[in-house]
């Protein structure tokens, strides 16, 4: 059978084991670009669209489990948008309505593009990626899953089934710089997650390195400078600016046809500063 339509995760894995070179087809928004350009040969396909379990999500007090088959449009839904607002913001910047209706979070993970819009959010949330393969389940932190540009820890026969993200009580947001107002690949992006309960700040960058980059130095600095009682930034706008500069120190951008390394580094500083500025009301500058 050239195209398998499994209906369960186990069947999907079995189909993949039977055809290790099969194309795993989720939304198709990356796969078809390569196929149409003649860059990918297709000999067999495991189509996931009937694996309904992948299209579900659930949450408890601590975390949200996002099925890998959720589309960007699903992530934009009212309820998920409230639970994980930065992910919804990121999803809304992806491509066009047509792309958001088809593309999935699992596909974004599997493609592992440095510009993948959900990846900085998942990185900032310390997301866990659940995989199922012939040898059973395993879970990896996002940072252990995305290994390089378009390179992941996914083994042959393995399937991404879910991304788990903690429910965070504080502010989170995503900003993305591109030279067009819609339908544009990120030149630079920033996800910021503030967890008042744990008194931590998490910041991750997109399109300025081979993988989504966390910014530990800037995060610690911000956590130390936030007044966690009042949820403010006593150092005001100057502190926000300092945070942006520290974030930029961790960027590893390159020059390419979409933009320069210098601009990308500059842009993450600016949008990181703005994220923090709007997350925490500065007292004064």
């Amino acid at each position: 059978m050239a195209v398998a339509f499994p209906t369960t995760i186990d069947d999907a894995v079995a189909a993949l084991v039977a055809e290790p070179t099969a194309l795993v087809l989720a939304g198709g928004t990356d796969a078809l670009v390569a196929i149409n350009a003649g860059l990918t040969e297709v000999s067999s396909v495991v189509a996931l669209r009937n694996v309904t379990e992948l299209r579900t999500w659930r949450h408890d007090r601590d975390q949200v489990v996002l099925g890998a088959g959720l589309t960007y449009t699903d992530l934009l839904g009212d309820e998920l948008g409230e639970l994980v607002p930065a992910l919804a913001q990121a999803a809304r910047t992806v491509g066009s309505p047509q792309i958001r209706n088809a593309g999935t979070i699992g596909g974004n993970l599997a493609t592992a593009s440095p510009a993948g819009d959900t990846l900085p959010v998942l990185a900032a949330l310390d997301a866990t990626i659940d995989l199922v393969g012939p040898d059973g389940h395993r879970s990896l932190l996002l940072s252990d899953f995305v290994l390089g540009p378009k390179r992941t820890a996914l083994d042959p026969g393995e399937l991404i089934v879910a991304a788990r993200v903690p429910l965070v009580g504080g502010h989170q947001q995503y900003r993305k710089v591109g030279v067009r107002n819609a339908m544009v690949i990120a030149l630079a992006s920033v996800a910021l997650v503030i967890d008042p309960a744990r008194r931590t700040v998490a910041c991750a960058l997109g399109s300025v390195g081979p993988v989504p980059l966390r910014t530990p130095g800037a995060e610690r600095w911000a956590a130390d400078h936030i007044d966690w009682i009042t949820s403010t930034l006593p150092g005001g706008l100057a502190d926000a600016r300092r945070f942006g500069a520290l974030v930029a120190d961790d960027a590893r951008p390159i020059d390419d046809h979409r933009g320069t390394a210098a601009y990308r580094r500059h842009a993450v500083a600016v949008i990181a500063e703005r994220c923090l500025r709007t997350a925490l009301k500065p007292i004064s500058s």
Partner: protein
Amino acid sequence: MRSASTGTTRSAAPTDTNQVTSGRIGESARRPDGGPKVRGEFAFTSDLWADRMLWGSTLRSPHAAARIVSVDISAALSVRGVASVLTATDVPGAPLYGLEVRDQPVFASDVVRYCGEPIAAVAADHPDSARRAAAAIRVDYDVRTPVVDAEAAIVGAPLHPDGNLFRHLFIRHGDPAARGAVSVEGTYDIGMQDQAFMGPESGLAIPAEDGGVDLVVSTQWLHNDRDQVAECVGLPPEKVRLTLGGVGGAFGAREDVSLHVHACLLALRTGRPVKMVYSRQESFLGHVHRHPARIWMRHTADPDGTIVSFEARIVLDGGAYRSSSFHVVANASCFAAGPYRVPNALIEGIGVRTNNPPCGAMRGFGAVQVCFAHEAQMDRLARACGIDPIELRLHNALSSGDRLLTGQRIDGVLPVADVIRRTVALPLPPVASAADDPMTRPGGAGRTTDAGDVRRGVGFAVGFKNLMYAEGYMDGSVAACRLVDGLATVRCAAAEVGQGFVTLAQQIARTVLGVDDVLVAQPDTTIGSSGSTSASRQTWMSGGAVEQACLAVRDSLLTRVAAERGVPVELLRIQDARVLSHDGGVDVTVAEAAPGVVFEEEREFHHRVTHPLDTDGQGDAHVSLACAAHRAVVDVDPELGLVRVVQVATAQDVGRALNPVQVIGQIEGGIAQGVGLAVMEELLLLDGRPRNPSFTDYLIPTALDMPEVVATLVEEPEPGAPFGAKGVGEPPVISSTPAVVAAIRDATSAPLTRVPVRPDDIALSANGTDDERTMETS
């Protein structure tokens, strides 16, 4: 037309687009092809199908400069489903083609001069087989270092037997020594813009029983294509018949031959219909682009702002082959100073061959590049003189009776001051509010920008260019009109590319003949040439031809009615679909005036004679001129260098609006392309190789990028123009770009001497470092 089950009933014939519509000159008549287009029934060339059809594919050079050591097609021939593989040795006729001069090989055989140059073509039973076979052709290249710098190419070794200079033009006007007290100068760069029409190149070639070939193709100029194809396939022109297929936009990129010769050669070789459809990437590689340019200008003026002298050096990178570079140089040079009175000028215009992709026609044709420069200069001059930039422009504005840089006196209408004043008077948009959705700010959907990060700027620009071909070109258009029982059919080879000539042809026929039912036949080469759908010329040229043919038919009808009724023909007229005599003795509908009689007339229309430019670039070279002004309002995030164009207001000199909605459509569409060039559109090259030949990376404005457009039409009929109408397609794209950039400068103080403006140019430029050299020379 089509059955739902198989492809076999799909037709190689273009759509019958004649939906019932109405409307005369001056009304916003609906497009006759609008119905089929909204229903997806309009047959674009990529939709055509023929029995036993093969698919063609092109092998293109990945190198910008190379010697071809060998080409081995054996592996391609063994790919399943392949019917034919052609290389340069298979071209039976002329080995070279070209829009104006035949300088471009049908297939490169020894030298490759640009990345994307065709080497071979394949026909196979499936598009994927054809692509695979093309990829299986083994070409051994001796790769050379490409010459990609225009200045280096001017003085460098010839890249082609014809040499590297497509044109080196000087315009010397007035007193070369005259100088004003105030001087401003600057150097400006314009990136390579692509037409980026939505429907990629496509065509269907069908071998004919007489040994000839029929080609249905998307083009701007059927007859010029026909001549080039006939030469290359080695057939007399009458055996190469072209029909216009449904065209998915053009904007200049379909003036040159693309797949035409390849498809016809494959069809003639295989004896089967061959369809070729370019991918988007191949489309970027397979058509000419707008010339990138580096332009130096120096203006001097009296302290009151009166321009005294103008100097410019314009270098246009024409890429590997000539296309229309010769005339783009003329346009850039002739209109280099903008629509202003300039008594003394020295202009050097150069179009040069490089190993970059060939450049040619794009909407605005040379005027776009210089307008960006001259309008930046006008703003600098205003600042240097301490005069409001609008006042400076009004003070120097050209009008009828003035002379161009070429010495030509403006005999027609050119209401420059009027378009400026009318634009200024248009309402400004409301101020931005913190309550606005962040998506409406710079950065758009990325939500990068908070209300406090935005600065608003306003910029102004004016531009003009010629209408129709110039420099003594004997331009004409042929149209035929047939009238029987009140049904008129218009035939004309003018290419409908989306602009709406089909609508206009109907409106003209209805107006002249007083009938409602007008069919417009699909353009083909069985009638005489209508010239190119370019240079804002079809409304005038083919509109004029249709009008004359219809007038001739009207006269025939009235003559016959007069003879039958025994009344002098001078007493008859057509009014409200009736033939009437002044005394009321004749009153009959056009449809019933001559039952069963066929009236058919063909006419050729010419505009007035123009003349070549002399060695000083002086001469009566241009037929007519049109101008527009644009005021742009932008919101800029200076820190991120992101721009949201909020509003573009414009007043345009249209002569007379023959179809107001279509005019607005041209204005809005042209502004979209001008905004694109201002802030996002550039085909980037690395060693001559396009880096972003896709819609993922060559960005054109989306619905979220398009500003509000506020437009007003300045209607002052042009003497000598049919119905007083001027072509309206080009002015919207000329000065909208500099207006947007001026607005960004206003918001940021960044110098911005290059388009498209990149975020770096704003965000990483130290403010206020405008390096203009303003000096008091007295």
